[in-house]
């Protein structure tokens, strides 16, 4: 219990210290607000622009959440396909890596060109950026089987499907969870990048759109608020996935507290 309190207490103290230093520095050096707004300026924006920020956060959360779910489903499906044949795996894997190494900032305008401005493009960017960790981790989990387990299934003449559902998939669950935790953080980054390029036309504009527009308009206090909310959104999604996975993994030997 004591460590649990400490884990919240000490970061909180550090937060207060840092914000205080920030406020003092702005005042002491007389920094212009469009370079570095003071903490109270940012806090003001949270109050005056609360409606805008709320709907922007929800829009970004929706795109990140939906894209993340699509990634998990598509990633696991692709991994199932990969697990069925070494030939498929060999043929497709370089392109899966390609997907990961493509600079998303360069691809996003292309996505807009193909899918138009709006939510669908934002979600597509999210899927592209968060798909890879799921594919690799799920594929590893479905193919790194214990020899003894495989022979056990051979002994009872298990079919391909029985092997998939009774051995490959359950064996991959801890790996899929690891992939999902990595992807959850990336999903929010993807949503912000997507909105940066494609978010201008939506009725509900996301945080990424405001990051772009307020940056140009030198509304730095608003920019700070958007950055803070983006990061917070990533943390929330990460915690949500961790919470769900903790429940799922109770059956498995893996202990998430060690990560």
């Amino acid at each position: 219990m004591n460590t649990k309190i400490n884990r919240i207490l000490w970061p909180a103290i550090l937060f207060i210290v840092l914000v205080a230093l920030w406020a003092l520095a702005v005042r002491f050096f007389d920094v212009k607000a469009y370079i570095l707004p003071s903490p109270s300026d940012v806090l003001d924006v949270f109050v005056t622009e609360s409606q805008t920020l709320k709907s922007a956060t929800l829009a970004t959360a929706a795109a990140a959440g939906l894209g993340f779910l699509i990634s998990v489903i598509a990633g696991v499906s692709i991994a199932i396909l990969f697990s069925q044949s070494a030939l498929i795996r060999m043929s497709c894997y370089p392109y899966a890596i390609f997907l990961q190494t493509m600079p998303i900032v360069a691809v996003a305008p292309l996505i807009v060109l193909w899918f138009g401005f709006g939510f669908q493009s934002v979600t597509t960017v999210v899927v592209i950026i968060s798909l890879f960790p799921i594919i690799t981790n799920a594929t590893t989990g479905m193919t790194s089987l214990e020899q003894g387990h495989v022979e056990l299934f051979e002994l009872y003449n298990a079919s391909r499907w029985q092997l998939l559902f009774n051995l490959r998939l359950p064996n991959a669950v801890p790996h899929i969870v690891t992939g999902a935790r990595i992807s959850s953080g990336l999903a929010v980054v993807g949503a912000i990048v997507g909105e940066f390029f494609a978010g201008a036309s939506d009725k509900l504009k996301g945080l990424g759109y405001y990051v772009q527009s307020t940056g140009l308009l030198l509304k730095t206090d608003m920019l700070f608020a958007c950055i803070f909310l983006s990061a917070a959104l990533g943390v929330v999604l990460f915690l949500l996935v961790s919470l769900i996975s903790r429940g799922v993994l109770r059956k498995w030997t893996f202990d998430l507290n060690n990560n």
Partner: protein
Amino acid sequence: MDIPSGGFLTLLGPSGCGKSTILRLIAGLTSPTDGDIQFNEGGTINRSFVFQDPTLLPWRTVWQNVALPLALRDDSNGDGQIEDVLKLVGLDSTHWQKYPRALSGGMRMRVSIARALVTNPQVLLLDEPFAALDELRRQQLNEDLLAIWAEQKCTTVFVTHNVGEAVFLGQQVAIMQSDPGQIAETIAISLSQPRTAALRTEQEYTELVTHVSSQLYRHQTNEALA
């Protein structure tokens, strides 16, 4: 090599002589490059294999692990059978809903044996199942295995490199040598059944262990000299 129906044969030999290979050939996990394996009953035979490791699935409970072979055969009426084999290997119902990680090494092996027995095999193959256990547990499981064999009446082949274990369990002990891997000699063990823990201190048993040990040694030496 001939194994009588319902008999208990132990395969004894040094590491790398092909004991496990013979077992895997009988199990059908490996295909023979030459020669063949015939069963008296003909046709497909119901074979079960107990691996060196318990090979339990960590995400399945004890009960679900034992149920796996039945599930793979789409046999959903095996609850009574599962209960029977779990009791037979000495696991009472307090353990049935536990996950393998909550069990000791000996208990896991018991679950593994129960899983092998749940399909009512005609042939039971065991590949050094107790090698990782301490001596006391190993002896206890040896005694229990004999009791199970007496009740199930399945033809049993047991691979080991422990002479005492081979003599205690087998009706016959087949001694193997390596390079080339072959059966050098089969020794009949005429100790009466049922065999219990008390047997280990009897002269008849210790003499047989000495005899088998010296034969095992002799065959390895011959081959080393050749």
